[in-house]
């Protein structure tokens, strides 16, 4: 080959690399961490790995896979099964069952044709995993397919069960909520178009109501009998995660950064903490424990508020807090988009207990 041709090919390769660099490519995270806890361990799905973190001191117990697979990422929060499995979906279109003690793979289900963004719902009756290929996959606990249901849109949120009617409820980016029979995957009802995508899981009230937040700047209450709208409450901006239901109140944030408390009975607004006080988008659902509300914002701040909306304390982390805070015993766990502070544990009074950094610097 002539040297000039080699120079030309080299230039084209440089151009290809420039384009890849300019366009962002694969190094940018496609989502944010997903967190689940059990009695002594937090399981964090983030980027190339699922990590098991010791709740007592924030050290790593194991990670899966041991060596990163550059074609795969994990962001959906893993789910524990009643028979001691950890179920987690990957961006490689595969659902994995892991041993929660050591992170060893039990089985995998590779039949989806697009990634798993949603956390699967795992019950005694089986696993219900929505994939971005617009299918809801129902598996038994051994990973064998029971049925699959094609849905008109993608679902990015874990389904919710309702034992009173043997239903599961699935929210969809196609602006609707679906009720499905978990025994055979037949659709029981679908809601009307709710005016915007629904990205979060619904909050379920056993008294027969589902609450969802939508990109149509609303929180909407639906009847679990037929999916009909009971009430609508306006927000200033898109609502990303589902509302948190506690007693007769719903707590929810929007992407402008407002936090709302609504009356679950009629959707009337009880109070609102405005974005200027909370300083950043609210993406995750608020965590409510007793009389305390914990909410994270894009600015990296974790707020503790009382149920009247008064800020009690604030802690600031370096990354963005898109993941809902999680309760683990007396600790509040906060996952950040900053890799070196992936998971931080605070006491309920706001004292930092430990930070989990998956790749600590080696001591020289």
């Amino acid at each position, binding site marked *: 080959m*002539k040297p*000039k*041709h080699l120079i*030309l*090919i080299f230039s*084209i390769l440089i*151009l*290809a690399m420039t*384009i890849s660099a*300019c*366009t*962002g490519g694969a190094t*940018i*995270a*496609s*989502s*944010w961490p997903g967190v689940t806890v059990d009695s002594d361990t937090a399981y964090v799905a983030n980027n190339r790995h699922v990590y098991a973190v010791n709740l007592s001191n924030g050290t790593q117990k194991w990670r899966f896979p041991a060596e990163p697979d550059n074609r795969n990422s994990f*962001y959906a929060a893993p789910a524990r099964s009643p028979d001691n499995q950890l179920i987690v979906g990957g961006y490689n279109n595969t659902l994995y069952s892991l041993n929660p003690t050591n992170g060893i793979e039990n089985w995998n289900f590779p039949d989806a044709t697009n990634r798993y*963004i949603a956390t699967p719902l795992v019950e005694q009756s089986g696993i219900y995993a929505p994939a*971005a290929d617009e299918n809801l996959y129902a598996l038994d606990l051994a990973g064998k397919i029971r049925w699959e249901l094609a849905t008109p*849109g*993608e679902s*990015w949120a874990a389904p919710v069960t309702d034992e009173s009617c043997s239903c599961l409820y699935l929210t969809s*980016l*196609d602006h609707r909520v679906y009720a499905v029979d978990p025994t055979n995957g037949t659709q029981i009802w679908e809601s009307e178009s709710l*005016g*915007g*995508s629904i*990205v979060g899981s619904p909050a379920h009230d056993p008294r027969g109501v589902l609450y969802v937040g*939508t*990109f*149509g*700047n609303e929180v909407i209450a639906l009847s679990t009998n037929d999916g009909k709208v009971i009430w609508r409450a306006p927000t200033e901006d*898109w609502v*990303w995660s589902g509302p948190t239901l506690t007693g007769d109140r719903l707590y929810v944030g929007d*992407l402008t950064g407002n936090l709302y408390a609504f009356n679950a009975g009629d959707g009337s607004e009880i109070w609102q903490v405005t974005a200027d006080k909370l300083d950043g*988008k609210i*993406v995750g659902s608020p965590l409510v424990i007793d009389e305390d509300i914990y909410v994270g914002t894009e600015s990296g701040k974790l707020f503790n508020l009382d149920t009247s909306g008064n800020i009690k304390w604030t802690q600031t982390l370096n990354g963005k807090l*898109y993941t809902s805070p999680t309760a683990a015993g007396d600790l509040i766990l906060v996952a950040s988009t900053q890799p070196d502070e992936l998971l931080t544990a605070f006491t309920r009074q706001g004292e930092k207990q430990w930070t989990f950094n998956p790749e600590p610097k080696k001591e020289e």
Partner: protein
Amino acid sequence: MWNTLILDPMVNSLLWIYDLLANNFGLAIIAFTIIVRLITYPLTAQQMKSTQKMQEMQKSKKWQEIQKKYKDDREKLSQEQMKLYREMGINPFGSCLPTIIQFPIIIGLYQAVVRALAVTPMQLLELSSHIYPLIPAAVLIPLNNYFLWLDLSQPEKDYGIPIAGFTIPILAILVVVSTYLQSKLMTPPTTGGEQGASMTKAMNLYMPLFMGYLAWSFPSGLALYFVTSNLVGILQYAIMGKLNWRNLLPIRTPSK
């Protein structure tokens, strides 16, 4: 700056066109590409004019004489060439500057397509910060990313059409063919000597393959842009009567 001046207007224009064109993102990309090509038409025309002037100058007696006279003194040769450029009122960068200006547009368009399709939570969250209030985003999202057999959000390498056990990347092939046609039809007869001809030939071969690789490995929305842009480019040159059909024929032009 980049977001405000390039990316956000592109994303919002795409969404606006998508809304107008019955929520068909494939048609939106095609329409958007045509609009971008029309807006950048003055640059294309200027590039063509400069190239033509350069071609004419390179054919001139004076140019040929300089080449011969200073063939062993490169420094002097370039000084004389610059002198000649000045005399004839030619900007030597006049033909490549418009191309360089179009480069950020291509990058911006790629980012706009990926951002508008928003197939991951982070992309969708990013998108939410960049939509103008007059765009009815809540109604439009999620965008319908299917067009003909294409999933515009996915690279064709992940879903190409299987024929007789092989996955055929039809869109990537269309990109290769249309890029090849465009480069052949729009390349004026080379006058830069054997070396120049050899470089042009190599470029005409490698560039389509490179574009085909991009089309195969990047989301198909970008590949659709490539095909449309190539076809519109050919059409623009055809309307201006500048297509060089002889380049397609397997006949060697006798050297002068």
